[in-house]
């Protein structure tokens, strides 16, 4: 077995040093009735690299790849180009095969990148501070809800009708367990501002999203004003991090907590994970934050260095009184994010956002020309919803046969909400003019 360095002679010599006859001695505490005699039945024996690679390649070969083009799926995960250097950087042994930086003297590499990551996230969201990541956007959203309850000592959160339904569901799961009331506003393409009227003096927070799950961008300032007037917090969610290169960032809309999905920067689609949850807040609420934080300090020689800090919020110190149970976070995905963002800088980030927006505008222009198509999203970044004259699922299946992966049917993420004829579609810098033409042509053929 190529991953096991011990030779039979080593094992014998080691057993002799220990004074045991065989490894069975170490398993003597396992109740006899349940000890396995041989190997676990029903599983194959070991295989060489080539055989394993073939097995995996056969599975991979059965999937339709986004890079094959004519691919318009968004809704919380986005197909973007990742520079080659980013993947090289995250495969450096020293980043890939290291642990959480609990020993700062030999982990400054990871710690400095985390400090830079936190600074970048704070800058792009226009918030004061960001943590060192959550699992993904949806779990960051759930954590924001319970943090708001902790801060306000209230037990009700209100979710907008444009919040990604998976984010809403993850938040409900966490809140339900803690007896926090969740008010879900009905699905709406363009009604984030309805949150304003749902705030009362019992509300811990309102959670709005821009761009929302239908792609609609909204200035949430009126929502934060209403929330603050009643002593509640405003949580601002985004699923498309690239949008922040162009749209009003959470901090400029009065958000108390900004959460979002960072996958778009530096990370592949990966069929849904691993991704990287972004979590930022104001100075005032730092000590109520979940997750790891990296901070600046000095070493014994007075050199600037970085350490994990404020860990009295965390489970390994505070146990049952921790702000969250999170331990492992998105580590290497934050490195991919920060390395890609370093390559972009403000200039590249803004330009990338513009290209995304232009691609989506071109797509909307082309689809609007198709008879029977009605664009529903009034203001959008790189994703929008449109109505088709027929069942969206059937139409998407027909488009697939013509080589176009046309988007997500709204009924897949919002079943039973009367959205059977709505498609949510997305374009990015990867979308070509040919892709857009192919989509419009195929849709013309199908409808």
């Amino acid at each position, binding site marked *: 077995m190529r*991953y096991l360095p011990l030779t039979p002679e080593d094992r014998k010599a080691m057993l002799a040093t220990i004074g045991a006859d065989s490894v069975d001695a170490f398993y003597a505490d396992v109740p006899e009735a349940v*000890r396995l005699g041989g190997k676990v039945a029903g599983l194959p024996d070991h295989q060489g690299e080539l055989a394993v690679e073939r097995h995996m390649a056969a599975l991979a070969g059965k999937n339709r790849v986004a890079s094959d083009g004519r691919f318009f799926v968004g809704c919380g995960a986005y197909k973007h180009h990742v520079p080659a250097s980013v993947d090289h950087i995250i495969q450096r042994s020293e980043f890939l*095969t290291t642990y959480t930086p609990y*020993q700062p003297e030999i982990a400054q590499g990871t710690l400095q990148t985390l400090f830079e990551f936190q600074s970048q996230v704070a800058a792009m969201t226009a918030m004061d501070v960001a943590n060192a990541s959550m699992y993904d956007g949806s779990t960051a959203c759930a954590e924001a809800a319970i943090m708001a309850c902790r801060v306000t000592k209230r037990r009700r959160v209100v979710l907008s009708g444009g919040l990604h339904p998976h984010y809403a569901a993850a938040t409900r799961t966490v809140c339900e367990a803690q007896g926090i009331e969740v008010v879900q506003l009905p699905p709406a393409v363009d009604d984030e501002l309805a949150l304003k009227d749902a705030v009362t003096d019992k509300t811990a927070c309102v959670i709005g999203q821009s761009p929302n799950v239908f792609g609609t961008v909204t200035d949430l300032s009126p929502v934060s004003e209403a929330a603050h007037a009643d002593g509640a917090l405003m949580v601002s969610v985004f699923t498309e991090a690239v949008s922040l290169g162009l749209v009003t960032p959470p901090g400029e809309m009065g958000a108390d907590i900004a959460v979002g999905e960072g996958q778009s920067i530096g990370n592949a689609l990966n*069929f849904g994970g691993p991704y990287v949850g972004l979590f930022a807040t104001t100075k005032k609420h730092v000590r109520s934050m979940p997750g790891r934080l990296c901070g600046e300090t000095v070493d014994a020689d007075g050199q600037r260095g970085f350490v994990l800090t404020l860990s009295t919020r965390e489970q390994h110190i505070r146990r*049952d009184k921790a702000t969250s149970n999170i331990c*492992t976070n998105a580590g290497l995905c934050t490195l991919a994010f920060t390395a890609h963002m370093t390559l972009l*800088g*403000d200039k590249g980030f803004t330009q990338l956002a513009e290209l995304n927006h232009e691609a989506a505008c071109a797509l909307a222009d082309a689809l609007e020309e198709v008879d029977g198509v009605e664009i529903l999203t009034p203001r959008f970044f790189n994703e929008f919803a449109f109505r088709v004259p027929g069942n969206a699922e059937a139409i998407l299946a027909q488009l697939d046969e013509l080589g176009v992966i046309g988007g997500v049917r709204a009924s897949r993420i919002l079943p039973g909400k009367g959205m059977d004829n709505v498609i949510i579609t997305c374009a990015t810098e990867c979308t070509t003019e040919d892709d857009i033409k192919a989509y419009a042509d195929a849709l013309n053929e199908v409808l």
Partner: protein
Amino acid sequence: MTMNSQGRSTTPDEAIPMSEIQTVSGSRGLQQREDLIFETGSTGKTGVDLPNPKGTKSRLGSVTRKRPTDLPGLSEPETMRHYVRLSQKNYAIDLGLFPLGSCTMKHNPRLNEKVARMPGFADIHPLQPQATVQGALELIDQLATWLKTLTGMPAVAMSPKAGAHGEFCGMMAIRRALIARGEIETRTRVLVPASAHGTNPATAVQCGFKVDEIKADERGRVNMEDFKAKLEDSSDIAGIMLTNPNTCGLFETDIMEIADLIHEAGGYFYCDGANFNAIMGRVRPGDLGIDAMHINLHKTFSTPHGGGGPGAGPTVLSDALADYAPVPFVVKDEDIYSLVEETEGEGEEAFGRLCAFHGQMGMFTRALAYMLSHGADGLKQAAEDAVLNANYVQARLKSTMTAAFDGYCMHEALFSDAFTAEGIDTLDISKALIDEGYHPMTMYFPLVVHGAMLIEPTETESKAELDRFCDALGAIAERAKAGDESLKGAPYLAPMRRLDETQAARKPVLRWTPPEPDRMAAE
């Protein structure tokens, strides 16, 4: 002195002590000084060449960013240098033994990295039509089968994103089961041993339960007397969260009795599977009476720790809890795989959802490649070698250091600080290991052992590497015993000396801000 043909010396001259050497650049040989990107980059610089936007009319309404970000950019060569220089300030498994107890820092095979990057896995979208991702669903199903078979459990929830998220999944399933029994209001107490990972009590509370701590006995196991006493009035018992093998590196000898008693009391048995690496192929958790257990793919199944993540925490469930698994899950009908993303009833999920999408696919591919590479025979051998390596370390060091408990250990060896001289503690020993070229062991955990040092070598270390490690740690332990004060200053040879954590926490600086004069100029 030996000279080469040009008269240059080829042997070193008398050296000046290293500590006295100062450099102008701040670098020290191969250890390059590296400033923050905010200090070296600029907002106008970029390392990507994107096409120029055409200037299409915006459809954003007025919801546009009013001020530019202060995100600094670097060119590609500067970017590469930045991260490679930083990387060289990190310790890593690929550099040497990483003996962190409870973390299972084993070798991360590069084949796994290769397969995870196959476009058919990395470049597919979680919401593209299911007919176009049959291979991905099949992979999830195959991995699920391996996990169920290895653990002897009937069901597995694949979506948890890390160990603690798996704990949350398992405890939520228990919560749902109690709701179904109509007992959620009364059964609120969860027993957690004092030696547990901090995530266990944190999770129990996050799921709305109260934590009741069980003592450890003198053998490092659950104190059965205390456990039984806590079950005397069992009407409020929701369950127990127990790590097995436990965080002292010991198999819980009474585990089957614990399972029976907790079930008799009307509760459920959650097992923290962080240490599954020790028992793979030797015993199946399903045979021990466990109801739920998460499996850290980033420990047992070698997916890289990546400096803190990402992980993956699929959670196996017993028949009693299988119905309460969260969405989504994969089902197979004939030869077609499909994903159940919502459950019946007006779109309201009966079981809940833990997160967006279907779990950590990028970790699934790596873990499956690892399992296929090892096979049933190799996984068993891996577990046995991990346990052998830990016992070897324990045997070699127990005459110098104080083993926390008598007898053999499982996959990790636990020592207390009883052997150290007054004034020298576990932290000093840990930091001295850094100077010897090793990452320290887990320190001060588990909490039930004073000054705990928990060493988990894993199966991917050779005997020669273990011997070098034991020689180094043994020598440090002798110095600690002798009260060598110089240990207090360690490390001396790392990229940094000990860092001031108190200052970091007292006046937190959590992001870069421009230096004062710049800020004034900007205003």
